[in-house]
Each structure stands twice: as structure tokens, then as C-alpha cells.
């Protein structure tokens, strides 16, 4: 029941095992690299070329393996919930440090630019590198800047949870609509023509889902950051 010792023992044994495995794997890989198996990735790219999304990685992440993405969203959702739960037992007393005038003004100037960039990354996820996960985190980092520089700034819990709920529910609903319309969960039921490849409105549900993922990730990360920041200020 000695927590400190147990954690140390488990961590070190895990590290040791991992090192051993890494050596074994390097050894095996150097001596016989896998021969050319026809990779799933190539086949996925072949299918994507009929699907009308310029960034093939987005198609794989959001559409072909969209079910995994749904699961990852759920993981993030539960993790954010857990952080809120574990930290909620502390008191809400804030220890305020006044930040300098320069920082306050500059962060006000930077905030809209960063938000704009985050939304750009989210919306153009199917055309250029980036997408919901990255864009969401960029938006959250804009809020982080504001939270650090303005001590009295606080995100409204109800607004964030409304965004969160909206995004999560609409992801599952879009999936179920695919099931009802095309008999295929997460089926691409919005018309997507190959001639529109590279335009902003193309690819059917794929950009829509990535924007939803972005909203969800952005609100979860902002909530995590706010919980950690505000609760760690009390002394």
C-alpha cells in the first residue's frame, strides 16, 4: 500500500521492459525487414481518388476510419470530464497576479488572429494539411493566452458545454443519418462530385465532420486548460 514506492516500481519496470523490447525490435527489423506486402494505405488512396477530397489523409481519418475518430472524441470527452471531476474537490479561491499592460494589450490584439487561424485550419482540413484536431487545439491555445494574460477572464461553463454537446450529438446523428439513408453508418449521404475536388464545398460529409471534430476538440481543450489553470492558482 505504499503508493510512492509502487508507482516508482511500476514506472521503472515499464521503462525497462520497453527498452528491452525496443532493442529486440531493432534487432529483428535490421535483419529481416518485411517484404512488400500490398499495403492497405495504397488501396485507400486508390479509393480516395474517386471520392473528391483533395487531402487524402483527411479522408482516411474522417471517413474510412471515422468510427475510430468518434472513439477518440469520446476518449477526449471522458478525459476532460475526469479532470473536471478530480479537480472539483478543491476550493475556488483565486490568487491573482496583475499582468503588465504590454501583455494585456498584445494578447487582445493576437486573440482574434489566432482564433481566425484555428478556424481556417478547421475549415480547410479537407483541402490542405490540418483539420479538426489541430484547429481545435489552436483555438484552445488562443483561449489559453487570454486566460493567462487576463486574470479575471473566465470562460462560461454552460456555453462551452453547449458547444460540446452540440458537436458530439451532431457527429453521432450524422453517422446515424448515413445509416438511415445509405444503410451504412457514417455513409457519405451528401452529394459529392469528383469534379468539385479542391473546392471549399466538396467531399460531402467529410468537411462537415471535421468542423464538428474541431468544435468538440476546441471546447474540450479549453475546458481542460481552464480547469487546470484556475484551480492551480489557489494557495
Amino acid at each position: 500500500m505504499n503508493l510512492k514506492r509502487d508507482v516508482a516500481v511500476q514506472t521503472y519496470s515499464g521503462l525497462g521492459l520497453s527498452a528491452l523490447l525496443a532493442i529486440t525490435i531493432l534487432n529483428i527489423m535490421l535483419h529481416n525487414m518485411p517484404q512488400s506486402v500490398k499495403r492497405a494505405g495504397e488501396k485507400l488512396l486508390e479509393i480516395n481518388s474517386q471520392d473528391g477530397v483533395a487531402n487524402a489523409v483527411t479522408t482516411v481519418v474522417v471517413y474510412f476510419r471515422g468510427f475510430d475518430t468518434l472513439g477518440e472524441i469520446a476518449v477526449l470527452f471522458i478525459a476532460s470530464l475526469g479532470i473536471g471531476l478530480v479537480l472539483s474537490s478543491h476550493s475556488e479561491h483565486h490568487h491573482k497576479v496583475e499582468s503588465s499592460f504590454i501583455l494585456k494589450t498584445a494578447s487582445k490584439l493576437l486573440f482574434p488572429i489566432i482564433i481566425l487561424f484555428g478556424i481556417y485550419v478547421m475549415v480547410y482540413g479537407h483541402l490542405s494539411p490540418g483539420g479538426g484536431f489541430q484547429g481545435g487545439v489552436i483555438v484552445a491555445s488562443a483561449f489559453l493566452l487570454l486566460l493567462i494574460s487576463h486574470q479575471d477572464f473566465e470562460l462560461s461553463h454552460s456555453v462551452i458545454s453547449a458547444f460540446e454537446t452540440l458537436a458530439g450529438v451532431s457527429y453521432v446523428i450524422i453517422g446515424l443519418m448515413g445509416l438511415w439513408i445509405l444503410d451504412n453508418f457514417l455513409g457519405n449521404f451528401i452529394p459529392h462530385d469528383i469534379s468539385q475536388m479542391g473546392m471549399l464545398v466538396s467531399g460531402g460529409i467529410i468537411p462537415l465532420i471535421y468542423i464538428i471534430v474541431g468544435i468538440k476538440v476546441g471546447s474540450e481543450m479549453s475546458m481542460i486548460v481552464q480547469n487546470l489553470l484556475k484551480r492551480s492558482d489557489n494557495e
Partner: protein
Amino acid sequence: MSSIYFIALPLLFGFAVPILSRFGKNSVAYSSAIMQLALLYLAYSMISMPNSVVEVIAINPPLGISLVANKVSVAFVLLFTLLMSLFSIYYLDIRRTKPYKDENKFFILINMLLASAIGLVLSSDIFNIYVFFEIAGISAYILSAYEGSAKAYEAGIKYLITGMIASIFLVFAIALIYIHLGSLNLAVLSERFMTLPSEMKLLISMLLFIGFGFKVEIFPLNFWVTDVYEGSSTLVNGLFSSIVVKAYLFVFFHIFYLFIPSGEYGSFLVMVGAITMIVAETVALKQTNLKRIFAYSSLGQIGFIFSTLTLESSSAVTAAIFIVIAHSIAKLAIFLTITIIEHSSGSVDISTLRHIKSPFVVTIFIVAMVSLLGLPPLLGFTGKFLSLKSFAVSAEFLPLTIIIIASVIESVYYFKLVGLLLDRESERKPLPTSLIQKSILSLLILILVVVGVAPWIISPYIDQASHMMLDNSLYISTLLGAGK
């Protein structure tokens, strides 16, 4: 009806809880119970379908993810939804007197746990299995730290660290599999796995064994289990022991049968299971905390199921499914009764058993324990008998001896508990139980008794299920033949 609802509906519910909680104090609790009952009905309606149903997501297998609902996976889904809905109804009664703090989050977590347990059973894509592995893991860490006491945090942190180590091993194995075999679909992997060079095969099997071994709670990797059970609340223990572990067990053997059909590592695994059982039962003798005792007894039973399943014969799989059903139901009943005792006396020490005066609770406790022990005429007996028979048929006499010795040790501490419950000399206080508690517990016990007396109610179905679980070519042809 489509099997995707088993996963989509609990996730939808989890995401929608902030809206639902606007409609009043009880709305989340009741809608959760109603949704689980709907899933139970769906599972019940799927049990009579003649063939396997493959639910394709986005694109056809082998590239896309798909869910396979065949006889055996539907049996597990039915078991999970049944136990979870009974648990929810039971909690509806408890929450009137002793609700958890921040109840909405509790409902989110149990539904995520249900969705991920079902996802583990249904999914046919190894990376998708990893995603559900993570969801189940993270919701379980938070559930075990839920009460917020120092012990609960200790349990949560222990669970978190071991779970993370397990995830590292598993994701490493999946990466190697994808590098070498170029696919993530279980059917394709099943065809290609035996073509790997033998060192690589051994390495991947070891990584998979360690990754799942932490979660399946197998001997060298189960040092954390009892601390987690002791720290987390008793109700949650019921879920861990009756739903989560069973899902991991199923997915471990699902992958094992598909990847290594020749039973190469069988003699190693059968001993691992037997050693798990005897170590757990021996340690359990000295315990004085009810939660720890039943945690060790869970470990023992899991070792028993594990070594039965490694025999890889259809009669052994039948036996193992019987034990899984019996153990899940009996353990849930026991943990729910311990909750009643804990709420009235505030302690889970075994001495509290001396001071309760309630013929109902005592009967439930004793019947469930007798079923765990595997005595006739209860459901536990059917499984144990079939399992011992298949051990004898496969001529595995060393594990058979170990298991029989372990069962004798198990009976020692069970009868110690029975002795405490029936002790005439001690002072006793009445134990209040409500009508809902009584009916849920009697329903669980009724299943144990009725199916135990007449196992032929479910045995034809389980026979078919066990054939299906071992029939790799059928699985491959249904999965790869699917496409719309």
C-alpha cells in the same frame, strides 16, 4: 435492426447529457435506464437471427471497420446489456438515499463503459479494438477514483499507470502487425499471421499477451487488481468484475483463436490460468476485507475461465461461456448485497457479516456463493462440471489437479463466510432492504437457480455459439464476403 445502435446510442447519450440534465433532476437517470432497456430488447431480438450479420461502417471490409454480430458476440452483448440495465435500475433506488456527487458524470461514465465493452466484443478491426480498449480504460480509471477519498485516488492512479503500460504494449503490437502484414482487419490478419517469421510471431504474441494480460488480470500482471477493487466503490466493483473483465477476456480469446489456430502457446497459457487461480485463492484465505476477498475470488474465477478457454475444444468453450454467465450474475449479486451491508453499517470488514439480521440478504449471499463454488443445482455447477470434463478429455491432468486444489481452498473461505452469516451467538441488527433491491437481487438469483436446474434452456444456443467462436473459416468468409 443494426448492431451499430449498441455503440452509437450510449455514445449519443453520453454526449447529450448536458442537454438532458436541463429537463429536471431525474431525467438523466431515467433516460439512461430506458436506453439500456431498449438496448436489452434489441439484443434479445438479435439473438434469434439465423446467421451472422456484418455491419459495414463507411467502406467495405477489409479496408473499413465493421462490426460482426454472430451467435457468440450477441450472447455477450445480451449478458452485458442485461447486467447493466439491472445495475441501472438498482442504482435508481440507491440514489434516493446515497447518490454519488455529480451524478450526471457517473451516468456518462457507465454508459461509455457499456459502449466500449460492447465495442470490444463486436469490432472486427484491431485498431478499433484498441480505441475501445482506451475508452473502457479511461472510464474505468475515473470510475475507480470517483469517490474522491485518498484510497479512491490511489486506486485510480494505480489503474491509470498499469492501464497506460498495457496500452503501450498493445499499440506497439498493432504497429508491428500493420508494418508486417499490411492490414488491420482481423479476418485478413488471421489468414496472414501464420506466414510471419517465427521470431516476429513470438514477439507480437508476447506484446499482445502482455497488453491484454494486464486487463484480463492474469497472474504475473494482476498485482494491481485488489488495490483497485478496495479503493473504488462497491457498486463500481460489480461492474468491473461482471462486465469489463469479461469483455477483455472475450476479445483476448477471439484474437487468440483467430491468430494462432494451431494452439501453439496453449500449454503455456493453460498453466498461466491455473497458477492465477491457485495464487489468488491462497491469498484470499488471509483477507478480512469483503471487497478484497471477492476481488481475489474474481481473479481465481478468471484464471479458471482462462485455462478452460485455452483448451480450444468446443466443449471447453461451451463450459467457459457457462462459467462466464454464472460468474457475472453471481458476482453482480454479491457486490450489490455488499453495497446494502456497507450502507447500513459503514464497513466492509467480514465481521459485519455477524451483525446483520435479514433472512433475504443472507439467502442471496449464500446462494450466490454456492453458485460461485460450483455446487449443484445452481448455474455455476453446469459450467464447472463441463469444464472439468473437458480437462479430463484433453488429458491435461496437471492443471486439472491444480484447479481442484484451488477449488477446495476457495470453498474454505466461502464456508468461513457462510459460518459468519449463520452464527447464532452474535447480536444482530435488522438490515432494511427496499422492494426494488429485493426484486433485482431475486431476479439475479432466480436466473442462477432456474438455468442451473434446467441448463437445456440455453445450452443449444451456447453449443452453436462455441462452434462459431472456434470456426475461423466461417468468420473470415462472413467478414470478407460482406459488402453492399
